[in-house]
């Protein structure tokens, strides 16, 4: 297995739980990535390749969502047709999103805007709705008492407040 950064450990799955050797000490809440031995191909997948794959998956998902939502009423509840401007802005957003922030899901809102969502564990979630006129409406819940929301302009770079909230999810 090749990594650009970081370290890797080997363990086994017992009763659905990954068991690492006793000498491996990871802090509570540490985010880990599990790659099953059987899933390795051609000598392993590099982090760069994995990120490219994630990026491509997100773009494919965006295309699929936009394609399905092009007809008014696509959701069965009178939803507006997917906005081409929102689609283009979402594509630009994904293009400049740092690789470590994999988008979990891409969806469409009833107003025709593209929505991106990230999650980390139960109840911890962050979403960004990409407006047709370039605004990013975000909301996040990081614990039962820690929540945030707001709107930022999208000028071709991910606003710092959004990057900060994404880091809160992955830390």
């Amino acid at each position: 297995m090749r990594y650009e950064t970081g370290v890797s450990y080997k363990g086994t799955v017992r009763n659905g739980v990954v068991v690492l050797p006793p000498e491996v000490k990871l802090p509570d809440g540490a985010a880990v990535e599990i790659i099953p031995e059987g899933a390795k191909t051609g000598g392993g997948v590099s982090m760069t390749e994995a990120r490219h794959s994630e990026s491509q998956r997100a773009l494919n998902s965006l295309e699929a969502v936009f394609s399905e939502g092009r007809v008014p009423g696509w959701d069965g509840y009178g939803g507006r047709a997917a906005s081409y401007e929102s689609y283009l802005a979402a594509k630009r957003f994904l293009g400049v999103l740092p690789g470590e922030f994999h988008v979990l899901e891409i969806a469409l809102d009833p107003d025709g805007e593209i929505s991106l969502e990230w999650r980390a564990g139960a109840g911890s979630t962050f979403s960004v709705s990409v407006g047709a006129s370039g605004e990013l409406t975000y909301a996040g819940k990081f614990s039962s008492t820690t929540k945030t929301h707001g709107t930022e302009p999208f000028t071709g770079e991910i606003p710092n407040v959004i990057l900060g909230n994404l880091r809160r999810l992955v830390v």
Partner: protein
Amino acid sequence: MSDEPGVVDQIAAEEIVARYIFSSAHFSRDNNRVKHNAFMPAPDGKTSVFRTKGLEGAAVWEIGEEVAKGRNQPLHARADITAEEVALATLKVALSEPPPRHCNIEGWPEDFALNHAHYAKGHPSKA
């Protein structure tokens, strides 16, 4: 007022309402979950749901199939949520018949940003 025996107008906190999903963009087979966008209100500011109290599984799906027929759209999935979970998002389930058992999730703020904030509060997505 509901005409069905055993279905009273008062919606209890533990009562389940079903949101029928007609877009594959509103659920994820990979992650086995319904996306929060499936609960976003329609242009009229309401989210249409149906009470399923006292119904067997097949009967719950039949309601969705009927709705799908009326909208000429395929029924893809269903999300169940309790009235209590809706209340946690500072919204409410209000009876809105006909059709029988139909309700709306109401109380959405007009401002879209606040709508998202509501999701962050309660995140009513339960596959």
